[in-house]
């Protein structure tokens, strides 16, 4: 866009009555699956099958389904694995992307544009599409059935690099020059000048990265064989297969609730941050 965003006009005037009622209805419809999950998770198991489909909580809430779910799958271990995977990926990403972003933002070297395009390729060739050759590589590296094997394909991030490069370029060069005069080396510059001034962008990236890998299913399913290394998503899929077989829908709802509750709580607490972060994933 060439023009700066003008002052907000009353858009109610611009689009008079674009079926606001319809949108409200749609938004309520959007919540139905989660509403059902919550109502069913707390429903006493003895209420019987026909009551299961009801969205009305006409009962005394009980934790019986949660106890059953907690006992039938090793959720604490799945949690731990998912946290290790997300934390591991994010920490390495922060290092690799800050270094590359600094190079693209502030260092001149021949071929910089070519390398920039080389990075761009990863936005399209996402690791999951290349799961067959990537699995071969993971096996050859001896990382099959390990958590680092789940993490490794995500250690470099084109998206993160671009986001940080854009941010680094907005930081006044005078700050860097002053630090250089004081005898700072390049790693001091990144660590003590650029990164501290890029906290909002880092946080936005962290939200996107953690959500993406918290939710990832297919790649860990390929790499992990031992039940002990399953992340939440894979553990939930196995758990759901059991609950489906037993027609234990209340227990299934409780198990699903356990998996998505942390994300929903974080979202409720930091709504604006989440929404803004996901928006930046488009504003590259």
């Amino acid at each position, binding site marked *: 866009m060439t023009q700066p965003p003008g002052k907000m006009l009353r858009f109610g005037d611009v689009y008079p009555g674009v079926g606001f009622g319809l949108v409200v209805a749609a938004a309520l419809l959007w919540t139905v699956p989660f509403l059902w999950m919550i109502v069913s998770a707390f429903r006493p198991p003895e209420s019987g099958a026909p009551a299961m489909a009801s969205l009305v909580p006409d009962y005394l809430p009980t934790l019986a389904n949660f106890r059953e779910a907690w006992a039938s799958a090793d959720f604490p271990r799945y949690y731990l694995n998912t946290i290790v995977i997300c934390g591991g990926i994010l920490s390495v990403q922060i290092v690799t992307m800050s270094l590359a972003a600094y*190079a693209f933002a502030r260092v001149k070297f021949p071929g910089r544009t070519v390398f920039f395009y080389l990075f761009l390729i990863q936005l399209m060739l996402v690791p999951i*599409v290349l799961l*067959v050759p990537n699995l071969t590589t993971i096996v050859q590296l001896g990382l099959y059935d390990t958590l680092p094997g789940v993490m490794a394909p995500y250690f470099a991030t*084109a998206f993160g690099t671009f986001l940080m490069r854009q941010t680094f370029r907005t930081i006044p060069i005078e700050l860097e020059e002053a630090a250089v005069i004081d005898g700072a080396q390049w790693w001091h510059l990144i660590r003590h000048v650029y990164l501290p001034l890029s906290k909002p962008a880092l946080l936005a990236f962290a939200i996107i990265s953690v959500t993406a890998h918290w939710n990832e299913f*297919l790649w860990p399913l390929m790499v992990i064989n031992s039940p002990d290394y399953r992340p939440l998503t894979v553990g939930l899929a196995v758990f759901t297969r059991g609950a489906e077989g037993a027609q234990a829908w209340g227990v299934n709802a409780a198990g699903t609730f356990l998996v998505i509750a942390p994300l929903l709580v974080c979202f409720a607490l930091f709504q604006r941050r989440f929404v803004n972060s996901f928006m930046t994933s488009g504003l590259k």
Partner: protein
Amino acid sequence: MSNVAIAQPRFVSLRSGMFSSAPRWHLRGYALLAPSLIFLGLFTYWPVAQVLWQSLHHQDRGGSSFVGMRNFTAIFHDPAFTHALANNLVYAIGTIAPSLVLALSFAVALLQSTWVNTLLRSLIFIPVLVPLVAVASLFLFIFLPGVGLLDHYLAKLGVQSINWVGDPDIALGSIIGLTIWKNAGYYMLFFLAGLQAIPSEAHEIALIEGASPWQRMRYVTLPYLNNTLAFVFVIALLNVVTQVDHIFVLTKGGPSDSTNLLLFYVYQQAVEQYDIGKAAAATVVALALLISLSSFSLRRMELSREAQS
């Protein structure tokens, strides 16, 4: 909205020309890129070469042998693959078009940041945050024939029980419905950002000229959203190829391959059939489709940017 600009060094003070500066300075640039390049090399560039090689070879325990295009002829003679390919096209059209229309409608209606709108946006956005596997696990019951949530409430309207994911004629439609519900909120955010960047003067002029709401949508809003549309289309295209988690939980590609998708077929060939050659050939087809369709859209984005500047 800021776009990706190709590196234009703003900072040239202290150092004179690119080649007169010390070579050590060049080395530093490459050294800084090295950690990323190692992983990009291992998991982005090398796999592309490897998947091309694997697609032309047959692998078994004895080793591998060159088979030319035989893996490709094999997959195109495999009904499961042709089904997956056709399904993926239906899945693409069936999810992308309605998701974008819905997302744009939501964005237009919820543009003003009142507290009600912010709440409604959040409600529509929540499915985006949740793992697709978890969503599928909820929909197992929602789609359950007879006693499930959908049938329970549809019965009150007099609708007969429907086998949502068990009927080969309906299953893909149900999967499409779930995917629209999951993704519309994500695309809505981009349209919100795009709409907020439209200068209000554009709408004021159209209003003075007496344009109808539909005309303003067609001739003011949509032209301004050109880039956003192209961008969201590329993201949606990526999702159509990469999002198959719900297939694992809900249908496993069935009944009779009616919900098989390309990436699920790749998984089946690689993990269940141990046929790396066919899996690689199917990956090559998926990549070719993905790259050709998205580069078309990205080119349009670039052209419209040039037209605007």
